[in-house]
């Protein structure tokens, strides 16, 4: 099955810093989602981004499907950005019956 790798596994930053999180996947995909899991465990949708670039406030994401990776950018980090960031792709091409998650990047923003 498709493999999803995220890097770095852990990231500790000072408030105000910028960061880039990476997601590599082993096969072609027709969609990709980024999630933020907050310290209370809630998974929050950040982006649905099968290709191209999207921006939402301080967050933006870019997926280069032909090269099988996606990047999540966080600018001017705030302590509320802390948590785990997951990317997820479909288990089977063109089927959305299940999504496969990476192991996540654990981000800790220090005040």
């Amino acid at each position, binding site marked *: 099955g498709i493999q*999803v790798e995220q890097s770095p596994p852990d990231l500790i930053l000072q408030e105000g810093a910028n960061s880039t999180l990476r997601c590599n996947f082993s096969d072609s995909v027709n969609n990709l989602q980024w*999630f933020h899991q907050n310290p209370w*465990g809630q998974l929050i949708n950040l982006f*649905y981004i099968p290709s191209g670039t999207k921006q939402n406030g301080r967050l933006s994401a870019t997926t280069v499907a032909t090269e099988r990776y996606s990047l999540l950018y966080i600018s001017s980090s705030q302590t509320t950005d802390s948590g785990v960031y*997951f990317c*997820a792709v479909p*288990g089977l091409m063109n089927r*959305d019956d299940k999504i496969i998650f990476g*192991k*996540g990047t654990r981000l800790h923003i220090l005040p």
Partner: protein
Amino acid sequence: GAGVSQTPSNKVTEKGKYVELRCDPISGHTALYWYRQSLGQGPEFLIYFQGTGAADDSGLPNDRFFAVRPEGSVSTLKIQRTERGDSAVYLCASRPGPTSTEQYFGPGTRLTVT
């Protein structure tokens, strides 16, 4: 509007007992998913419903796990003869329908088997 809700938020049970976990999807969402998340890992797929039927149950680890969605809305995940290895957070997600791709997750049920 209301998001996906799950009850209970926490469940502690003894090894060998039976448990039921409930998921209320977003109103009108036809697709419903169950995932399991162990400590330090990403969620892992268990089962997917499209309407009332289980379209894909390939992620259920063994026959102690079963899920139903009798009226195409609320779903119940049932675990028989619980084992300590079943301890995890069980997440439910829903999706509007076949033409939509984003899944929306509930807060999860933390199951602890002692």
